[in-house]
Structures are given as C-alpha cells and as structure tokens.
C-alpha cells in the first residue's frame, strides 16, 4: 500500500513546529537569564561566550523536550499503526488509523520514530543527572576522608576504587544488569548502601555546621532523615507508605549499576582536589581554630573544590548518557520496547541494510545532548579558570 508523502521542507517545518513549547521555554529562560546575567554568578558568565551559549541552548532544548514530551510527541512511543511499518519520513497516516504524519518515518514495529525520540529524552534526562548526583555524593563522602586523612583509610579506599576502575564497564554491566539478578538480593543490598550515602552526607553537613545551635540542627537533621528516609524506603524497599516514591526494579538496577560504575571516578577527583586544598592557609587557620576534621572537609575544602567538580559533573552526565546508551545498545536492563535512545539505536542498527531512517534520529539526539554537555563543561572550565 502506498502512503502519501509530504515534502522535505514540510517535514522540517512541522518538526520544528512540534517543538514549540521547547522554543518558548528556551526563549523565556535564556532571555531572562541573559538580562540578569551580571547577577547570576558562574551561570551568568556562561552567557558571555558563544560556546557557553550553544552548550546551554542544547542542554535546555533536551531538558524541555523531556519536560514537554507528551505535548510535543504526536503519538504514543509504543503504540503501533500497522500500515506504517518502515514508513519513510513524512509519511501521512491514513485517516482510518487516526491521521497525522510520521515526521521521521516509522520503525520495524511501525511506531513513530519522532515520538520515540522525544520520549526517549525523558528516560535519559531523569536517570543520567540523578545517577551522576548520587555518584557525586558517594564519591565526595568517601573521597574527602581519603584525601584529608591519608594513610590506611586512603590506601584501602583507593584500592577499592582502582579495582572498580580496572574492571571494563561493559563486563560490569553484563554481570550487574542481567535479568536474573533481580531475584537475588544483590541489587537491593547495593541500593541500600548507595542510597545511604546522601543521607549520611547531608546529616554530616548539617551536624558539623550547626552543632552548637540545637534549634537549627534538630530541625535540619529531622528534615533530612524524614525526607531521606521516605525516599529511601520508596526506592530501596519499594515500601513508600504514601505510595508516591517508587521505581521500577529494572530502572533501579540500571541506576545502581551506573552509580557504581561512575562513583570511583568522582572519588579519585575529590581525593586529588582535597590533597591539594588541604595544604592551603585557610585550612590551617580552621585547624588552628580547633574545628573538627569533618567541618573542615565539608565546609572549608569542599566549597573550594566546587569549580573542578562542577565541570566534572557536566562531563560526567554526558558520560553517563553514553553509558545508558551502551546499556540500551546491548539490551541490558531496559525493557525491549523502551523508547530510550540506546535501545532505539540497537533496534535500528540491525536493519541498516534495508532501512536507514529509524537509526538517525536517536543517534543524532544522543550525540547532540552529549555535545551540549561537553560544550557546557568547556565553557565552565574556561570561566572558572578566569577567576
């Protein structure tokens, strides 16, 4: 059966048009930020350079695409319209099957490639930054004492970190993200350990600062334990009493594997930064004042290490995105019909001999997002070097 086609120009115009909420949001956010850039610190300085502007624009584009997915995507990412199997880009869906246009064509299972790409951004933009933040907290909580105290604790933690780093990521994923492993306690134990770190981190942060101001301390500690415990219950035991926080076991598994793979890297960077910063005068001053080691680590050393850490976090989100794509490419963890970019690339790359068009949107999406993050990191590095 022959499908009606629309022209190339029309495809471009309509796909740009479909992103209208994104353009609007970018214009609003970046316009306002540009006007007040002088008051926005490091973030505002990004608006001074072309590289920073471009990086921000790309990252915002995908961020808002993820937020407005349901408005942008014309179809459901997993619904199939049988006649549209391997339809070329710009094919018009017959009136009988709902109408509309498959802007980037249909894939082997006659799903809309455009909608899948748009929905795929959601998965990537939730897991990648969240996993990076967790890895940051795990790496910081372990890297601070390792760098500050040195000695035995440093030797032990560095050995463990190097061990994980010596392990090829892909083998790690094959071992940790196999379907069978969800029946064993391994992922839950790991989740239990990893999700403890943010709670410990914030408790230590507040305790060291407000030790002598019980009114503030009890409030903040209480809030941390309450909120942290709530999320912890929901994520690790899937037993949130209110039923709001929950995570699909597969996604939990991926999340844990990604955190596990990237926290040793953060650990090494934090450790190196701490070893450098602890020789500074303000640390000596704090030691002379009689501050506790953890106060110095969390409130003197860590804030001064923020520049390189922010840059590294940016790069690391990109790297995590690549890792997620690798997982999808090998069909590990994510459901086979999941619209994420890695899975889409896997599906499409097996059929490159016959159909090309389903392969390109997810590859370009993944590449552009990582490129945006890399540009952002570059601009941030340049700006923080200027100070």
């Amino acid at each position, binding site marked *: 059966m022959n499908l009606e086609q629309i022209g190339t120009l029309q495809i471009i115009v309509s796909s740009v048009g479909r992103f209208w909420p994104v353009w609007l949001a970018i214009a609003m956010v970046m316009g306002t930020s540009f006007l007040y850039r002088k008051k926005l610190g490091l973030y505002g300085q990004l608006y001074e350079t072309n590289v920073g502007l471009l990086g921000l624009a790309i990252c915002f584009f995908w961020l808002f695409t993820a937020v407005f997915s349901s408005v942008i995507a014309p179809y459901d990412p997993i619904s199939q319209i049988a006649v549209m199997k391997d339809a070329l880009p710009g094919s018009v869906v017959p009136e009988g099957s709902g109408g509309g246009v498959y802007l980037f064509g249909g894939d082997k299972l006659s799903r809309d490639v455009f909608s899948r790409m748009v929905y795929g951004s959601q998965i990537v933009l939730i897991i990648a930054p969240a996993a990076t933040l967790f890895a940051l907290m795990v790496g910081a909580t372990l890297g601070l004492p390792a760098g500050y105290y040195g000695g035995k604790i440093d030797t032990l933690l560095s*050995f463990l970190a*190097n*061990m994980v*780093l*010596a*392990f*090829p*990521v*892909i*083998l790690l994923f*094959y*071992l*940790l993200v*196999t*379907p*069978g*492993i969800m*029946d*064993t306690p*391994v992922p839950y134990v790991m989740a239990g350990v990893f999700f403890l770190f943010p709670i410990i981190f914030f408790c230590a942060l507040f305790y060291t600062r407000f030790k002598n101001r019980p009114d503030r301390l009890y409030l903040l500690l209480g809030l941390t334990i309450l909120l942290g415990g709530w999320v912890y219950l929901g994520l690790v035991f899937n037993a949130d009493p209110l039923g709001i926080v929950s995570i699909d076991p597969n996604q939990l598994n991926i999340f844990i594997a990604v955190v596990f793979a990237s926290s040793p890297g953060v650990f090494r960077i934090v450790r190196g930064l701490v070893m450098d910063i602890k020789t500074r005068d303000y640390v000596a001053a704090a030691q002379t004042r009689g501050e506790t080691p953890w106060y110095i680590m969390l409130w003197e050393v860590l804030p001064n290490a923020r520049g390189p850490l922010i840059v590294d976090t940016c790069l690391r989100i*990109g790297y995590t995105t*690549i890792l997620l*794509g*690798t997982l999808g*490419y*090998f069909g590990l963890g994510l459901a086979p019909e999941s619209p994420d970019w*890695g899975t889409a*690339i*896997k599906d*499409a*790359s097996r059929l*490159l*001999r016959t159909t*090309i068009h389903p*392969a*390109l949107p997810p*590859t370009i999406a*993944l*590449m*552009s997002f*990582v*490129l945006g*993050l*890399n*540009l952002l990191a*570059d601009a941030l590095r340049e700006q923080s070097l200027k100070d």
Partner: protein
Amino acid sequence: MLQFILRRLGIMALTMLCLTVVVFFLISLEPNLKKLAISQTESRATQEQLESWLQRNGYRQNFFVRYGQWLGVVKKQPNIDASTGKAVSRFVFCDEPDVATYSGILQGDFGCSTKFRVPVAQKLLPALGATGILMFWVMVTMVPVALLIGILAGMREGSRTDRTLSAVSIMTTATPEYVSGVIFSVIFASWLGWLNGSAASATTQGVNFYNFTLPVMTMAVYGIGYIARMTRASMVEVMTQQYIRTARLKGLSFRSVVIKHALRNALIAPFTVIMLQFPWLLTGVVIVETMFRYQGFGYTLVEAASNNDIDLLLACSLVSVFVVLFTQLLSDIGYAYLNPRIRVQ
C-alpha cells in the same frame, strides 16, 4: 625502581584475585546457574533434571571449594557416573581427566567453555589475536591523527585552526562507538556503498580495506577527541614556557621551535593518556565487534556473558583486568622514564 615495579605487580595480583572472587560470586548466583543449566540440558528439562545436572557437574559444591578449583589450589573432582559408579571426565569435549587433579589458573588451565564446547584457551587465544589486529590498526590510525590535531591546535592558542580543530575534537568525544558506527555505516555502506558494513568476512578471509575500515574508523573516532584535547592542553602549556620564548627570541623559525623544542615536551602527557585509554578501548572493542560481527575478544565476552559460560567469562575478565592494570603500570614507568623531573619513590 625495581622495588616499585615489584610492589605494583603485587597490588596487581591482589586486585586480580579480589576481582575474580567478585566475578565468581556474581556468576554463581542462583539465577545464573539456572541459566547455565537450562542452556546445557535439553530445552524441556524439569527442575529436578536441572538440579541434578548442576549437582553432577560440581556446581553445588561450596563456593570457596569451586573458586579454589578454578584457581588451582583445590583438586578438581571428576564426575561419578551414577549407573556404574566409575569416575568419568566432567566435560568430555574438553578432554578433562577422569581423576582428581589440580588444574586451575595457576597450572595454566583456564577451564572449559560450556558454550563453545572447547577448552577456554583454544577459544580465547584466536579471539585475542583477532582483537589484537583490530587494536593495532586502531592505534595506528588513532594516535597519529590525534597527536597531529592536538599539536596543530595547541601550536597557536586561540587561532582559527585551534578553534576549528577543538570543535572537531569536542564533537568526537560526544560520539560513542555505537553512534559513530551507525552514522558511518549509513554514509559509507548504505549510501555510498564504498565499504562493507560487516567485518564478518575479516575473520574468515582475512583483513582488507573494505571489511575493516569501518570498525577501525568507528573505534578510532571516539578516542581521537580525548587524546587530541590532552595533547592540545599540554602543547598550549609548553608554548608559554620561558625556553620557547628564548628560542623564538634568538631567531629560530616558528616551525623549528615547534618541532625541536616544544614537541618532545608536549608529548609526555599524551603518552600517559594513550596508555590509560585501554579500559575505554576494551568497551569499544565489545561494541564494535558486536556491531560489525567481528569474532574477537569482545564478541567472545558477549557470548560468554549472555550464556553464563563461567570459565570463559572468568578468563575474559582476567584478561581484561590484566590488560588494564598492565598498561597502567607501563604508563607510570614510561612517564618516569620520559620525564626525568619525576622520579619514582
């Protein structure tokens, strides 16, 4: 120096020991053993048959006993044939002896691959050879191109060349193998038809330009950006040094300053980076070999992992961890050798 190397080798052995315990633990988890038993018995085997297969082949022994057997410090026991009561070899297809022997890694026996039905060494060595060829061509293309880009960009910081080349290298760092592989296949295999989109024929008919360019290109691209950026940074730093200014002021041409004075010092840092690229390259090998159907180490690893082929998977992890740690050691030694200012303590 000798003491340093010995210490590092000791740590290396310890790391490998710890990691193999972890891998052994993970692949001996109940669901994984089930998977193995299912793939090794007939498809309609009952729970009891699966259990008896695991029992008979020694998978139900104590974890540490089995690890010891694999390592070669505990004797591997032959199977006992239930009907005759005689000892028979565990896996006939691997020529395993029918008497209890020490036969593990320490004795040089990597065990038996249940998936390919051959001894692990017989499967792994050709695969490593094939991957070695791939790695060789990747290194031969990646390193010179990356160094050239880095040096040209870092030579004159902020120039038009610098900005263009930096943009190129930042682009390539954002392109993982499975992305560039797809894009290159679309352009060179599907549209232009210049190159072969599969390297399967490289295994049987030997390597040639048509079947090997795409895998090599795909792998090289991701690494180029990173090495080029490191080279550029190091070159930029060297170009601001006093001795470069002195050389310029005494009237040497820019070209000879770059080649004779800057280059040698600027290449120390990239050397380390190239050596530390190996862990990344290993992941790349797995992706590229799967994508282009090239039967090397990465392909073997994927097959071993998806069939829970215990001995093969352990051998694969041992090899990859060894490669990673060994290149780290080489990079440390090489760094101290290249840079006399740094002395190993």
